[in-house]
């Protein structure tokens, strides 16, 4: 039997990668453990080892091929005694045998059209845009702010030499040096406290948590030390700093690595909380967060890091904290979401449009302060509202929005507000259960049909 060597998945969220370089050539003998190729994932360049012994008979995907889907055959290995002819004969049957198997239904690398109303950020007429990943947009925001303010520095696990566990801080160590891009030991409680102290002392730290799940260990300093000091000091001093990192579910990383903390932080007076969806918002909001004199919680999403969005080509593009954005105007229902929830909201709106239901899609972007005006004005227009978020249902952002809508727009409502959320369970590992635990586009569509009585 010939063995098909398949493009490997080398990170939890990897669905495709670049086959940077073959380190073997056709005709080479390999043994298990030999390094055959270098593969660039969404996170890092990895070496790919042989598992079986044999001769590389055919390289199917050449050096430098980009966007090679996981599980695509990339080479053929002949086991002892086989000939090349046999393998060629087998090849025709291979074609349909293996298909990329997406782990969950999220398309990566898809360019999302920034359709309307980006003008809310006052982008000047004639501004050009460049398709940029959320990951690069975040890096650009930090680099720009570090260039303009000597007191801004980045600290966290693997931010410097490793260039970020999710490659968000690529190039920053090279440009700014070890004084301003500080690798910390794995000690969230301690380094969060140190960062708060540095902020009290007049610096503007950006603290990267490898994920916000680990920030639970640092919660005391975020809440008790950073958020409350301005008040407790009668306005004398506070913590001008940013806590940032991926938040919420990634893919198949289980209960302890998949928690969305949006509603937790949004509850705390003394914090600002933002959770962008697009790359432009990620960049503009992170720049605003770094400049903000208050502690800002900046919630990113691992699934969105590789997504491309148009980002305006401006020297200093910022997005104000506390302003929602309407991505899509509509008349029949308001879909309100933030962060990765926007993906389900936008997909649902698209499908609903085909059925003749016109949905207005509001991206809160900031969860503290919340732009209630934009939401309430939309609900007063559409008379119906569905909220969408990935976090748990009890005490969710959606619960809060429902209460606000009830209090301030009760007479405008033609149906109860429905909250689409993650399920009330710890995140399961099994692929099918994880999919079930997350909010889905279909649930959003079903909710819209309920509130529009269709």
């Amino acid at each position, binding site marked *: 039997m010939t063995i098909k060597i398949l493009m490997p998945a080398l990170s939890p969220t990897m669905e495709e990668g670049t086959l940077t370089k073959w380190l073997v050539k056709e005709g080479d003998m390999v043994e298990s453990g030999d390094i055959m190729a270098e593969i660039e994932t969404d996170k890092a360049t990895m070496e790919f080892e042989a598992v079986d012994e044999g001769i590389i008979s055919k390289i199917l995907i050449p050096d430098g091929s980009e966007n090679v889907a996981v599980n695509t055959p990339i080479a053929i290995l002949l086991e002892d005694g086989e000939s090349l002819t046999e393998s060629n004969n087998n090849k025709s049957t291979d074609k349909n045998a293996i298909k990329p198997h997406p782990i969950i239904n999220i398309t990566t690398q898809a360019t999302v059209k920034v359709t309307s109303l980006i003008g809310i950020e006052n982008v000047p007429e004639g501004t050009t845009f460049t398709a940029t990943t959320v990951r690069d947009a975040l890096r650009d925001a930090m680099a720009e702010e570090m260039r303009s303010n000597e007191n801004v520095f980045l600290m966290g696990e693997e931010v410097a030499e490793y260039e970020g566990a999710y490659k968000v801080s690529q190039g920053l160590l090279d440009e700014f040096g070890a004084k301003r891009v500080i690798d910390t030991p794995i000690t969230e*409680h301690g380094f969060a406290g*140190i960062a708060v102290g540095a902020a009290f002392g007049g610096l503007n730290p950006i603290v990267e948590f490898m994920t916000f799940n680990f920030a639970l260990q640092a919660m005391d300093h975020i809440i008790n030390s950073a958020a409350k000091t301005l008040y407790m*000091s009668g306005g004398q001093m506070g913590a001008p700093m940013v806590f940032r990192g991926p938040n919420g579910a990634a893919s198949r990383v289980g209960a302890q690595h998949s928690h969305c903390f949006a509603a937790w932080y949004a509850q705390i007076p003394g914090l600002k909380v933002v959770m962008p969806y697009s790359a432009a918002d990620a960049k503009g909001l992170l720049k605003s967060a770094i400049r903000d004199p208050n502690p800002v919680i900046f919630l990113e999403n691992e699934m969105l890091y590789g997504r491309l969005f148009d980002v305006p080509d401006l020297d200093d593009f910022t997005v104000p904290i506390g302003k929602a954005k309407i991505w899509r105007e509509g008349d029949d229902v308001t879909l309100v979401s933030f962060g990765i929830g926007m993906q389900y909201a936008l997909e649902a709106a698209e499908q609903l449009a085909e059925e003749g239901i016109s949905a207005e899609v509001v991206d809160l972007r900031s969860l503290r302060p919340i732009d209630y005006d934009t939401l309430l004005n939309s609900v007063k227009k559409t008379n119906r509202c569905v909220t969408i978020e990935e976090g748990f249902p009890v005490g969710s952002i959606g619960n809060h929005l429902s209460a606000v809508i009830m209090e301030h727009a009760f007479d405008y409502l033609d149906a109860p507000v429905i909250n689409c959320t993650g399920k009330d369970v710890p995140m399961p590992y099994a692929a099918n259960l994880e999919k079930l635990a997350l909010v889905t586009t279909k649930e959003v569509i079903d909710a819209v049909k309920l509130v529009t009585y269709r």
Partner: protein
Amino acid sequence: MAASKKKSKSNISPEELQKYYREMLLIRRFEEKAGQLYGMGHIGGFCHLYIGQEAVVVGLEAAAKDGDNRLTSYRDHAHMLACGLDPKGVMAELTGRKDGLSKGKGGSMHMFSKEKHFYGGHGIVAAQVPIGAGLALANQYRGEDSVTFTYFGDGAANQGQVYESFNMAALWKLPVIFVVENNRYAMGTSLQRAASTPDFYTRGEAFGITGAVVDGMNVLAVKAAGELAVAHCRAGNGPYVLEVKTYRYRGHSMSDPARYRSKEEVKQVKDNEDPIDMIKEMLTQGGHATSDELKKIDKEIKKIVQESADFAIASPEPDLSELYTDILV
């Protein structure tokens, strides 16, 4: 103990002795007054007094220079008085009035002064430890030679974040002095029952941090030990652990009857080791002050404290509009 007393005696001027006497006495009288105001209902919530520990903060402040930072736990009134903050502002914060250091919004455990580089007043046990290391990081970042006095108790010394801070402070050579105020009791738990190793000054050893221990009832010994620690940090040698052995005469807070220790134990310390009596004796026996001069000082201090109490009671409560201010900049 005796050796350090003798040694420091020879290097000290009568003026300095009087200064320390005055500063320690101010703390004691202030705390006694705070206790009294608490009993009268003028001070609410928790109130942690520093009586008995005065030599620690007065001795270390004598080793500090302008620009140095200090921060501590909730037992913080003395640290503020010792770094020169007006007793009126401190007392008015204890009474929760608008002229308090934090406009009455912080309370006894949460006070700050950017002007005096006093960074709290922290109500969460040991939270000030990494924050102190972070203040030192800011000094190092800007190339300043300031040091940060990070005070915490023997109870806090068992918190995990202390060792996270030790590790990073040593790794990055941060100019921070970790001052362990060992008063023998973490609230009601004696250190024998809470600490597997009672020698706190050795706890930095695993991280390569120099440590020292000093008699915290002797202000001159504390000052001398503080000077060594400061010199170490200012020279860029990284952090330093200074254990100061002290004793609090009162309970953990005003509501603690301190039944976990004997009256004899407290009496023994008060009678034989009191830091203020020690200095007083040095002043009188050395012929550096007459009893009339000391009485004059006592009177002055009493007046300052009484004025702070009067001020703190007369100052109005904060305006109701203050509820919603200072939440965000």
